[in-house]
């Protein structure tokens, strides 16, 4: 899967005079058709665990990519916002913890969960935009740690250490959305929706202004743009993505507990986004699939090589280090480098991707 995805990075600039259907690059058609017919080929386990999980992680990391890539703000609180969304759906919707869960129908619970996640994300954004660059990472790391400890200690609302279990998606249209194929399409839909929304926003006035703020905040504020408002709004949008991802994640494992949004999970989201690449919205999904595949199969692979399966974190950490060291733009950066060197004219040593 991950081998196919990078083809999407060749996003051609939209055609000038063609209709919008024709202007969709061929890679999108190929990937789209493959993704749609995958359930016919892949096993339930792969659909649910690798694709479903990969899409969800990708969606959460997409928010980080949006903040980091277009806004220049690397936030580690994405996973906490996702956790907030998941918790809220467990609290307002049905779950096995009936003393706390209100059991409201999905069309009330989900919007409330998303709105609360967005408010939470906006507050985090409002706090962290007071700082810049590396400070943002530290403050969001501290916030996500506080969220983790708070949910672990609070029994009245968050049910403490054990969290909520039995959080199931609604049986809408008579479909069991937790069965592997429906869940696959559900996550695929939201991942695609998130992907195209981010792509659209990146070219819309708001996205362009945000990229301007990233490159030169002083000039943008001199031009009359409200720098802080743009940044906070970016946090709000990223929180929406994380909230959707968090709800799906809760449904996938049917439970949510403080560990879901722990510190290591927060760092994992950063790892995913950076491994994939922060320059294009496809990056987080590539990273998420690599992560999901590694997480599920690395154990067996490590045992096969003769190491203990517990060294999974070592593998992930080393891979992350190597990528950050040699290609700060992640896998996407490697891909661009490869293309540049392929197109280079060996005689003049010029060319590459510069048109």
């Amino acid at each position, binding site marked *: 899967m991950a081998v196919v995805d990078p083809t999407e990075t060749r996003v051609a600039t939209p055609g000038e005079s063609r209709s919008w259907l024709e202007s969709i690059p061929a890679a999108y058609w190929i990937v789209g058709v493959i993704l749609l017919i995958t359930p016919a080929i892949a096993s339930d386990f792969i659909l649910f665990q690798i694709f479903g999980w990969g899409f969800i992680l990708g969606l959460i990391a997409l928010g980080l990519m949006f903040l980091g890539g277009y806004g220049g703000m*690397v936030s580690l609180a994405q996973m906490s916002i996702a956790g907030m969304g998941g918790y809220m759906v467990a609290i307002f919707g049905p779950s096995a913890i009936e003393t706390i869960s209100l059991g409201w129908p999905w069309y009330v619970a989900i919007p409330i969960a998303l709105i609360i996640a967005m408010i939470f994300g906006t507050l985090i954004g409002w*706090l962290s935009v*007071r*700082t810049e*660059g*590396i*400070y943002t*990472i*530290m*403050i969001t*790391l*501290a*916030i996500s*740690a*506080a969220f983790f*400890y*708070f949910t672990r*200690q*609070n*029994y009245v609302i968050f049910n403490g250490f054990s969290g909520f279990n039995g959080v199931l998606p609604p049986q809408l249209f008579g479909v069991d959305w937790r069965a592997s194929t429906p869940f696959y399409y559900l996550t695929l839909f939201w991942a695609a929706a998130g992907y195209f929304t981010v792509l659209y926003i990146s070219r819309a006035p708001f996205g362009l202004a945000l990229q301007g703020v990233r490159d030169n905040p002083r000039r943008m504020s001199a031009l009359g743009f409200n720098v802080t408002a743009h940044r906070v709004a970016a946090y709000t949008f990223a929180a929406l993505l994380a909230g959707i991802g968090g709800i799906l994640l809760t449904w996938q494992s049917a439970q949510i507990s403080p560990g879901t949004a722990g*510190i*290591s999970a927060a*760092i994992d989201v*950063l*790892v995913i986004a*950076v491994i994939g690449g922060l320059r294009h919205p496809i990056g987080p999904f590539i990273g998420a699939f690599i992560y999901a595949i590694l997480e599920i199969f690395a154990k067996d692979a490590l045992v096969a090589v003769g190491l*203990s399966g*517990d*060294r999974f*974190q*070592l593998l*992930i*950490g*080393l891979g*992350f*280090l190597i990528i*950050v*060291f040699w290609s*700060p733009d992640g896998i996407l950066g490697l891909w661009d480098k490869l293309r540049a060197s392929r197109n280079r004219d060996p005689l003049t040593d010029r060319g590459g991707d510069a048109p």
Partner: protein
Amino acid sequence: MTDFARRHPIWTAIIVIVAAVLIWMIFAVWPKWLVELIGRKKVFLNALFNGITLGGLYFLVASGFTLIFGLMRNVNLAHGSLYLLGGYIGYEVAEATGYWLLAFPAAFIVVGALGILLQLFVFRKMEGEDLRQTLVTIGISIVVADLMLWGWGGDFYNINAPSWLSGPMETILVTAQKRSGDLVYLKYPMVRIVIFLAAVAIGIGMWLLLNRTRVGMLIRAGVDDRDMLSAIGARIQLVFLGVFAFGAGLAGVAGVVGGTFQSVAPGEDTRFLLASLVVVIVGGMGSIPGAALGALLIGLAEQFGSVYMPTYAVVLTFLIMVGVLAFRPQGLMGR
């Protein structure tokens, strides 16, 4: 000091009143209504002492972090791993030789050497690229944490203090009055007091080094404008190397202290990384007095929180951070 009082008379008054109340609470024998209101004085004094000594430990960890940040502008998120590694090394050395005091230089040297390697092979290669440095140190901390888990397993280790330091020490503070009229004095673990005094000594030493010596002058000049400093011929890379080694070594020493106070175990690295993050955010990035103030505040908040509002102790620290960020984003002592 007088300058501060002249500019912020109300704040000064509040600080003076709070200090006076605190001093009275520490030295006086508590009347009955106060005991009924917030519990026995012994609990209060213990929380106070634990908070102050924990603050000393936090200061040891955070001062290295803030020194490195102040001079080189790089955020070393592997600082918690250095702390934990120091704890493990201290444990091994103390177990092997039987001398607790040997653990400190051993941890300082080994972790400091690791800091030199980090500076040489990681930070110097990507000077000025904040985000990349941060990401690389996150990667390093993941790898080092797993290597340590591999080497030492998930067990808790305790570094035992020598016999001349163990046991309680009688202090001059009165906790209660017996019915017979005798005064009951507070007993407090000797090792904690000694370690706290050592932390204070290290803090004063660092302050003297920074403000009274030539090397300190170089470092302070580097904090203000390192390009200019290197332009006038100071060997800035050497200063960087020295500061990084010292900061990392301090984290290692703090690991030994933490292993004696509490225990050495996986997960302590993130805990202390977070603590030092919060401390330097509250105190102000790159300021040693700020780190001391922040460490004291956070240590006290954590201990008083865990005594008087057990469930939300962690949230209290967080609230302090949010409050500081909202009203003074550069930190209490930041510039």
